[in-house]
């Protein structure tokens, strides 16, 4: 089984704007059918589109972030076809002069060593979304035009992707980038990020390369579905080729739909004739000129993007690629939070551990955002510093953080109120050590006879000392005094 997998994605992203691409109509998701409409988005006779400048700016921002070249002059075209979810029976889109050219998405490196490299972009253009058809019982179809006219970015990649995991990674990286840019919420379930995948195989046999017919997979409603559908489809194509030997020269591109429930792809109805969209320039809109000053303002508005941030976390804070990625892929607010804590403490690795273990777990459990997390970066930094200075041990720190999350109080107050201050009094700890050794003669006996490993016995005795001091004893001091006591007892 020697073949290359060839995958290209066609991605649609709804841009997050308050009003639609060509009208003042609102864009809120999840409202009753046909309530987010106005005469323009309904395509009522006599209405005219007016370009939403904000939407165009978000598109420019995205293209710049995807390393694309911005066209100085771009225009709108009408794509003509009849379908009930398209109120005007034409879609305002871009044909021969899209607003950007080229660009690429970084394919993230995976833990297993896979991934890496770039996926080139064939084109990125802006258009208006269509409405939605809902097929009800009894062969009845209902049209919801709430979605009609929402700004939609079409991103078509080159066939640069070589595995289903990379396809997923590429799409996840795109989502992360768009979320960092704040241009889209990219929810596949809600349809603000949609993806179709084109796939075929280049089979190597006897020094020849044979390409299988291309299949477009639709109905991919999650990142998991993208990966699973591709895995399924690759196997299916390979088996099919072994059965019928059909190659790309023998069969046209076909469309298959992914069934989440059955985990298979199934053939979808094909159009009987090639569609002719009769594109022509949209006469109701004027061309857009993206001048240099406008582009400069947009470039300035773009903050640090995920790829750059991962690099910086590794170089500035010395984090491992794994840790850097975990913090970055949680989203901009988590990465910002980490930046703040790390800078305030100077304890980069500790800050990363505390955030990954405690902060992320809590916000996941409580389903809150970092913005809602009650402990501010400075407060967490203060707690980490206390642990680092030895005022608290790690377990105490954990407990205090729990209280800080509950109450919103700073560590200082909780420490005072809860008597958390660590005991570093030599005499007090020495007394506790003596008591522990006296109460456990069998431990000394075991040590003497070498029945157990010394570390295990010492650990047990350390636990006894901590128990006596209510967990407040300075662990370093306990260790030191216990070593001294044991040395004395074993003589």
């Amino acid at each position, binding site marked *: 089984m020697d073949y290359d997998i060839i995958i290209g994605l066609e991605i649609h992203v709804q841009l997050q704007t308050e009003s639609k691409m060509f009208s003042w109509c609102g864009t809120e998701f999840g409202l009753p059918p046909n309530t987010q409409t106005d005469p323009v988005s309904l395509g009522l006779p*006599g209405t005219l589109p007016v370009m939403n400048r904000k939407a165009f700016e978000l598109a420019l921002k995205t293209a710049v972030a995807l390393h694309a070249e911005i066209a100085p002059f771009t225009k709108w075209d009408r794509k003509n076809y009849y379908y009930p979810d398209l*109120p005007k*029976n034409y879609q305002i889109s871009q044909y021969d002069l899209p607003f950007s050219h080229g660009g690429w998405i970084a394919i993230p490196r995976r833990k297993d060593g896979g991934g890496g490299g770039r996926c080139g972009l064939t084109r990125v253009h802006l258009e208006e979304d269509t409405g939605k058809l809902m097929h009800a019982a009894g062969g009845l179809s209902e049209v919801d035009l709430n979605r009609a006219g929402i700004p939609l970015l079409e991103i078509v990649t080159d066939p640069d992707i070589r595995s289903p995991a990379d396809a997923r990674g590429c799409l996840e990286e795109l989502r992360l980038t768009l979320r960092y840019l704040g241009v889209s919420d990219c929810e596949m379930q809600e349809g603000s990020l949609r993806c179709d995948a084109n796939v075929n195989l280049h089979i190597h046999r006897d020094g020849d390369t044979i390409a299988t017919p291309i299949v477009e997979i639709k109905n991919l409603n999650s990142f998991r579905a993208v990966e699973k559908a591709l895995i399924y489809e690759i196997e299916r194509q390979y088996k099919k080729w072994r059965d019928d030997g059909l190659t790309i020269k023998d069969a046209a591109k076909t469309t298959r739909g992914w069934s989440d429930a059955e985990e298979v792809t199934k053939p979808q109805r094909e159009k009987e004739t090639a569609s002719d969209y009769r594109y022509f320039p949209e006469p109701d809109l004027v061309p857009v000129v993206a001048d240099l000053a406008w582009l400069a303002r947009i470039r300035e508005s773009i903050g640090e993007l995920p790829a750059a941030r991962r690099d910086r976390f590794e170089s500035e804070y010395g984090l491992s690629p794994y840790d850097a990625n975990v913090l970055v892929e949680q989203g901009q607010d988590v990465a910002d939070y980490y930046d703040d804590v790390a800078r305030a403490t100077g304890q980069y690795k500790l800050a990363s551990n505390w955030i990954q273990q405690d902060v992320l777990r809590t916000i996941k459990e409580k389903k809150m955002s970092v913005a809602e997390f009650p402990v501010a970066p400075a407060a967490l930094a203060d707690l980490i510093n206390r642990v680092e200075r030895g005022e608290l041990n790690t377990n105490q720190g954990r407990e205090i953080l729990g209280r800080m999350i509950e109450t919103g109080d700073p560590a200082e107050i909780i420490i005072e109120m809860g008597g958390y201050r660590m005991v570093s009094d030599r005499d007090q700890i020495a007394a506790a050590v003596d008591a522990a050794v006296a109460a456990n003669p069998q431990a000394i006996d075991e040590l003497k006879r070498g029945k157990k490993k010394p570390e295990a016995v010492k650990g047990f005795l350390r636990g006894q000392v901590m128990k006596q001091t209510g967990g407040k004893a300075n662990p370093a001091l306990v260790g030191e005094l216990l070593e001294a006591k044991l040395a004395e007892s074993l003589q």
Partner: protein
Amino acid sequence: MNSATATALLAGLEQGAISSEEIVIGLLDRADRLKRLNVFVHLDPDHVLSQARAIDKRRRSGDSVGPLAGVPVAIKDLLCVEGEPTTCGSRMLRTFRPPYDATVISRLKQAGAILFGKTNMDEFAMGSSTENSAYGPTLNPWDETRVPGGSSGGSAAAVAAGLAPIALGSDTGGSIRQPAAVCGIVGLKPTYGRVSRYGLIAFASSLDQIGPFAHDLADTALILKAISGHDPRDSTSVDDSVPDYPATLGTPPESLRIGVVPEFFGEGLDPEVESAIREAIRVYEQAGATIRKVSLPNSRSGIPAYYIVAPAECSSNLARYDGTIYGHRAADFSPRYPGEESLAPMVRMMMASRAEGFGAEVKRRIMLGTFVLSAGYADQYYNQALKVRRLIRNDFDSAFKEVDVLIGPTSPTPAFKLGERTSNPLAMYLSDIYTITANLAGIPGLSIPCGLTKSNLPIGLQLLAPAFAEEKLLRTARVFERATDWHLKRPGVKE
């Protein structure tokens, strides 16, 4: 009063000599008695009266009123008026009542005008005779066996017959100027972008422009000022200040270089029309104008280019009328022809609705437009036509380097007989041979009355000016109007 201009009515209203209510009662009465002309497709007396009473009340109470306060304006039935039927002369939109006002309608309302009915038109503004209407033809008030021109024939006839002092129409290839010419009134197609198209039900978006009909230039200037200006709802409307057309109308233009276009005196030009135009040129000469011959070599490609661009846009603009969201929906869409059984019911519904809803000329243009945009043909037709359009624009640019305005006939013939050209689309298309190039170039064009044939049919003089030079156009036309009395002629319509 039936032949009064808006300017005269406004003077009467301001002096308190007459009320708006009295004006509209008189006009409603006349409309009732002239129903045979088939000018209005919708005229609601109660709605008209309540508007008139409201404006009279405001005037009496001393409130400030707009520049058209109390003046009735007839509206071509493709301009959306909130809650009022707006049918485009089509069966397709028989039940359509827009939930919003066209921008020109809002501006008329703001100016205090009374919306006086919706006027008949060729279906979706496609035609030159108003015979392509689902509501039957409108008759020419000068000779009721003849057409009033088109597509804005209802609005032109309304003004000519004294059913409204002023009216609005739309002009895609001559649909204001040609009916104005054959109805003996003034008609202006403003520069593309001068007047907002928002709420104008589109025929061909890159060519359509709304404009006024009136008895004379003073009224034309008045209404033009009221409807012009930038509209954030129309991206193609130009953000430029609007000159005070009425204020400057009386001042003769500083420069009066007039270009006579030989291509406008070609084959098919009626001799009586030609001699009236030659006479008009002499009038200008006597007024001190420099007359110069200026060629528009590409104008003969105007009709072919237009009949590619306009149908192409129309095929797309009219695609939305499929019975799904609005428009006529066929009650029966069972398969009628072999092969239709395999089509989805939804597709058959769209097909049957469009087959029933549209008339023959609209279907002809949709098919033409679909064809010229099709893969493999677009380069040959549509893209070629866009090149011709640029050449025509260049012709005008060079011409206007030499002269201030261009002069010629509006229409090659006076009003023709009802039915005379209905079976010959090409003959019908040639009615617009002199007007179409202005739409392709986006420049303003004006038709003013300049004579009557021996059989008492009006003749129109067309003046063309550079883009956004309406002020110059009106002032130049006023030189002629001042020297003649054609604008005072009225048809003897029997009530």
